[in-house]
């Protein structure tokens, strides 16, 4: 089965995300500074930015793993920091490292959510799990332990685990990081196909320029904890902002290397 033979749409409507004046401080360090943007229901929204710019922290606020210092995050009409929201909105988070349960087989990793939420008997759960695995061509990995999987397979299992949840909102944290270009392209195709067939709202945090500019409906660039720009991919292809141009198309300049600049910044 290919990614075209995809899961049925979630029985629940897709939801959007509203981030309003979000600020997060850890001790005296401000990681997110007055961040505001909106993700519309059903769109693929890519959040890009350099390392340490606050992307993952922002994602953790959306799934409710972090509490804002000030500002608000809403998923649909619900406050993301309220634990009850996770019972009202089905959101799935594909972690960068997969975050698979290492003591369980691939099958049990996928079956955990429907079992714990009593979404049918064991035959129905099996069918659901096998369908998700087949979408990502993982049928042969069903009895394997996560430690036996390659990086790309772990990422696909993490996406399959998210699919089993039939989510209204799907969040990806660096889905193509540490993957070779072919596997990266496969993951990009999966994200795009899933949205096409399930209309799930997708928020993708990534460094991957090709991912963001090829499949995103809209892109936001975050730098130093602030949103620098939000727009459609075409806006970023002809941007005149030097910081964004440098981030999207970094030039190798051996006469003025960047690491020297970093050293000066630290001094």
């Amino acid at each position, binding site marked *: 089965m290919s990614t075209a033979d995809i899961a049925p749409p979630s029985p629940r409507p897709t939801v959007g995300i509203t981030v309003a004046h979000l600020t997060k401080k850890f001790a005296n360090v401000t990681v997110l500074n007055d961040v505001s943007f909106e993700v519309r229901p059903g769109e693929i929204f890519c959040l890009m930015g350099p390392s340490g710019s606050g992307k993952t922290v922002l994602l*953790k606020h959306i799934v409710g793993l972090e509490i804002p210092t000030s500002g608000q995050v809403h998923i649909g009409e619900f406050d993301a920091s309220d634990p009850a929201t996770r019972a009202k909105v089905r959101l799935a988070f594909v972690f960068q490292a997969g975050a698979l349960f290492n003591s369980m087989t691939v099958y049990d990793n996928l079956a955990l959510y429907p079992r714990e939420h009593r979404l049918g008997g064991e035959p129905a759960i099996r069918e659901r799990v096998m369908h998700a695995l087949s979408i990502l061509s993982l049928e042969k990995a069903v009895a394997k332990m996560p430690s036996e999987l390659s990086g790309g397979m772990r990422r696909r299992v993490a996406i399959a685990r998210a699919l089993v949840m039939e989510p209204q909102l799907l969040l990806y944290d660096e889905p193509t990081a540490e993957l070779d270009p072919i596997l990266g392209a496969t993951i990009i195709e999966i994200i795009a196909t899933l949205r096409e067939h399930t209309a799930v709202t997708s928020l993708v945090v990534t460094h991957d320029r090709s991912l963001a500019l090829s499949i995103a409906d809209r892109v936001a660039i975050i730098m130093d904890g602030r949103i620098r720009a939000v727009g459609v991919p075409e806006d970023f292809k002809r941007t005149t902002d030097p910081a964004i141009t440098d981030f999207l198309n970094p030039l190798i300049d051996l006469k003025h290397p960047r690491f020297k600049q970093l050293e000066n910044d630290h001094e």
Partner: protein
Amino acid sequence: MNSFLAICESFGSALCMLGRTARYLNTLPRQFPRFIEQCYLIGYTTMPIVTILCFFIGSALAQQSGYSMENFGAKQFIGALVGLSMVRELGPVMVAILVAGRVGSAITAELASMKVYQEVDALVTMDIPPERILVLPRLAAVLVMMPVLTVIANLCGWYGGALVCQYTKSISVDSESYFAVLKRFMAVRDVSDGLLKAEVFGFVVITICCHIGLNTRGGPREIGASLTKAIVTSLIFILVLDYFINEILI
């Protein structure tokens, strides 16, 4: 002052974790396979070391008390001394220490590694409370297994003492007289007090280990730090609680 506040914060946070766990008590029947798995880990795998250790503790206790009590001409009471010491004090305390060292450390390491590698975060995002599937089955299992382990510890200690009394020439108290005295001085209350202590110790040890494991932050190095912290805290709590429970029970 900061350390005191940190201790208070940890204590409050552990109580909150217990409160959240209690909310899922009604889901315990659904956690049956996990409960059985934990019973196996806490009970069955700890049993051999409890058996060996408590047998030799009983033996050593009989040896030492035989040596001392001979001076008072009271060596016929060794059975009572070993029996009561094992039931009221050494049995529950040794089992608690062994559970902390063997099971508590494994629990802390497992939960800390789950936390560090974001498995706990994955559970939270899936709306599966970690307390429900990670803490509740362990607490339920320790409450069931602690009395079992303590009874085994007591019996091994008694028989260890009996063997020493019978076969050590300087003591020479036969098993029949040893157990007759033991039975004469032993009340049901002594046994129930010991089992109650064991329950409290087991509950506290697993609570501490789960709490420290689930609150681990950082990388692999912090898993080791959490492990040390959990064991040291557990041992301190066992011995401090032992004194205060004795104060209440005696």
